[in-house]
């Protein structure tokens, strides 16, 4: 009797111990899982905390819509970042204009036309394109694309167009990946229905499948837009980095990211704060884009 009691107690203790251990493990794992969330919160808090005080010195309107960036002017420093916002938008839209058609076509090719081996080749191509570091894209841009632009159109070659071409190559993988996944995950019945009604392959792809995959494709394009807006090194190296309002595709340009990198090394006081404020604008742009991806895609679990 005593013996069984003792055994029971020992076992209960072991169970309790184990339960306690399990609980503590769970807590540790939860903390790991929360690191990302906490990081995002911290990043937001710190970026806003460092950047917002600028508005004590400069009005929001002057900052966002001012066209004059002269932070080193001691008597009357001006912090207008409109040229950089416009520059970012120009380069991003230019990149998408080039990358979206090629990206979608390549994705359709992979989903509908290519045989298994071709798909495998294209998969590794896309994976490699995505894996090449941005500083290498920038270097390639300096050596090849700027030179090409310089020789074709004249000027320095460091321009909106050069930046857009490099960014187009860089966002291709994003567009291709998402479009391909969306097209392949469309229900077979959509394609079969069209073919059964006598639709040709061309018609089926362009009039049925692509429209059906619209939301996925748009999500991919928006995601690519986010990538392009946030890209720093490659555009920094090829786009000229002049703090002026871009006037055309051959004009030198500075984007929001370039503005942060260029001045961060030496800026102090309001100037430094203004760089963090610039990053707030960039951060908000990206957040809005990412949130809209989530909204467009809906719940990702549903598609898969």
């Amino acid at each position, binding site marked *: 009797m005593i013996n069984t009691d003792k055994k029971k107690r020992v076992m209960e203790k072991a169970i309790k111990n184990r339960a306690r*251990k399990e609980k503590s*493990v769970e807590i*540790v794992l*939860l903390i790991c899982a929360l690191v990302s969330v906490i990081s995002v919160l911290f990043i937001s808090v710190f970026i806003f905390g460092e950047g917002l005080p600028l508005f004590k010195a400069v009005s929001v309107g002057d900052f966002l819509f001012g066209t004059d960036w002269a932070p080193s002017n001691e008597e009357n420093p001006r912090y207008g970042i409109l040229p950089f916002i416009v520059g970012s938008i120009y380069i991003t839209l230019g990149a998408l204009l080039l990358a979206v058609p090629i990206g979608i076509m390549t994705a359709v090719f992979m989903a509908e036309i290519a045989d298994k081996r071709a798909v495998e080749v294209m998969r590794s191509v896309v994976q490699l394109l995505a894996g090449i570091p941005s*500083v290498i894209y920038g270097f*390639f841009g300096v050596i090849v694309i700027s030179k090409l632009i310089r020789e074709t159109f004249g000027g320095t070659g460091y321009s909106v167009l050069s930046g857009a071409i490099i960014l187009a190559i860089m966002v291709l993988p994003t567009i291709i990946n998402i479009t391909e996944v969306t097209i392949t995950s469309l229900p077979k019945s959509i394609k079969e229905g069209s073919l059964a009604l006598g639709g*040709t392959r061309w018609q089926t792809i362009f009039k049925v499948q692509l429209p059906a995959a619209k939301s996925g494709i748009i999500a991919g394009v928006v995601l690519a837009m986010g990538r392009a807006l946030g890209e720093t090194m490659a555009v920094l190296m090829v786009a000229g980095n002049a703090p002026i309002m871009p006037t055309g595709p051959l004009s030198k340009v500075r984007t929001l*990211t370039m503005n942060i990198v260029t001045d961060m090394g030496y800026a102090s006081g309001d100037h430094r704060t203004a*760089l963090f404020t610039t990053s707030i604008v960039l951060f908000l742009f*990206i957040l809005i884009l990412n949130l809209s991806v989530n909204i467009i895609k809906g719940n990702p679990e549903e598609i898969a």
Partner: protein
Amino acid sequence: MSILLNTQTPVTDISIEALVNSEQRKADTHYRKSKRANTLATITLWSAAALTLAILVYILGFIIYKGFRSDNILETDYINYGTIESPLPWQSDDTIMIVNSDVRLKEINGDNLESLLKGKPSNWGNINEQDLDVIPYVLDTAEGNFGKKTIIKNDVESIAAAVENQVGAFGIIPAADADKIDGYKLNVIPVWSLGIGVSPTVLEIKDNKKMRFIDGDMLKDILRGNISNWQEIGGIDLPITLVIPPAGSYEYNAYLELAGISEDELPDTGISTGNPAEYIEQINKLDGGIGIIQITAAEANDMKTLKYQYRKTGRNIQMWFLFEEPKRAGRVGGVSSIIINTIYMVLLTVLFSTPIGIGAAVYLTEYAKQGRLVKIIRLGTETLAGIPSIIFGLFGFIVFVDYMNLGIGLLSGTLTLTLMILPTIVRTSEEAIKAVPRSFRAGSLALGAGKWQTIYKVVIPAAAPGILTGVILAVGRAVGETAALLFTMGFDYRRVENLNTSARVLSTHLYQLVKEGISFDRAFATATILIVIVLAVNVLSTKLVVRKY
């Protein structure tokens, strides 16, 4: 039906036949049209894919090609013509330059040789990008101004022995004693000493034209007498007056060799002179005059020289580039310490991010109940993945460098990178863990193992290849990252000594090389190393994914 209604003619047998025919034809054209559209579509899609492929191949091929092979057009005062036995202006007899075999030197020009002897770069770096001290040796009978560090010996054998044994040593010996250095392990270096002397009239500017340089082919044509006017090679309208060096002189022999002709084939248009002083005077005085001349002689006589343009090709990245320490902002030496810094960075980043990433993935797949918390965590991870690297850089700069006072250095940089690559590891680990069949867990639990035991001993080992893939992909991303490191990791190219020292890695080094315009050859070599790492990462990650249940 509509066709029948639209037909005006009465319906007869013939018209029905015609109708059928016309319908047939319409169907045919429609068929052909749709077939054409299909072909067009296929071609469009194929070319899009081909373009994507071509872009990748071009970028990688171009950089790797240039990484392994340097190919540059250079312009110098000197003609790329050198001989083993060469005249030095400050010596009365011909000399030979001998160099220690560890010094990477294929040729040297007169200016560089003179300054080396004066001890004024005291390092080989300026001349051949090698970080070595220069130790010059000369004979006691040698004439000229030598630096304080130049060591004077009294016989050729002791110079040869010293040059053989001392890394970075070189010596100048009389050409007459060439046989005395036989048997010593050292390199004999040809010296470039000649340039292209021209009369001042050649360099005048007329009609926006000015003679700027000559390349090897132009020079050959001129020396053979095939070109008679400067206009033909981009200069002004002025007849070329070719002056032939005094017969038997060093310049004379070089002339014949550069032109690729024998003595009998010397052009008749050339003006021959008897002695060196007259030769120089002729080139200077005659309109459109040109002649091959020692650069030092040209300088001494205030003679104008034309730049000589030539193409220099050779291997670019070589073993020494990987194993030598960089010096002078990467102008000299290799990238060894930078590679080591990169390895440290990758190891630390993996060390920090893998446990957290796997922990998060385990929590999300094994513990969390679907609900608001999981949604928030997912959203957080996704948002983190979308934040641009420059913002990570700023964050690391304020938090790790400033607030936590870690300074710009290895630790700040790797912590920043850890946050950046965390989403990749979480996402891939999650998928890998999800792919482990339920039966694994059920079996383990049925055997009496606890939940954590099951995860730790069964689930994670089973998911290891997938997790490893994620880690490798994350490493690929970390290796190439630049923007986040600019303000967190710094640019010191020496090997890091502790966690707080600023450290330059391959990506930031490449950026610096391009930004400062230090050397495109070196930039290509560095980019090639980076690309090789990225390729290796890709191969590894695809090799690992094969495991399926």
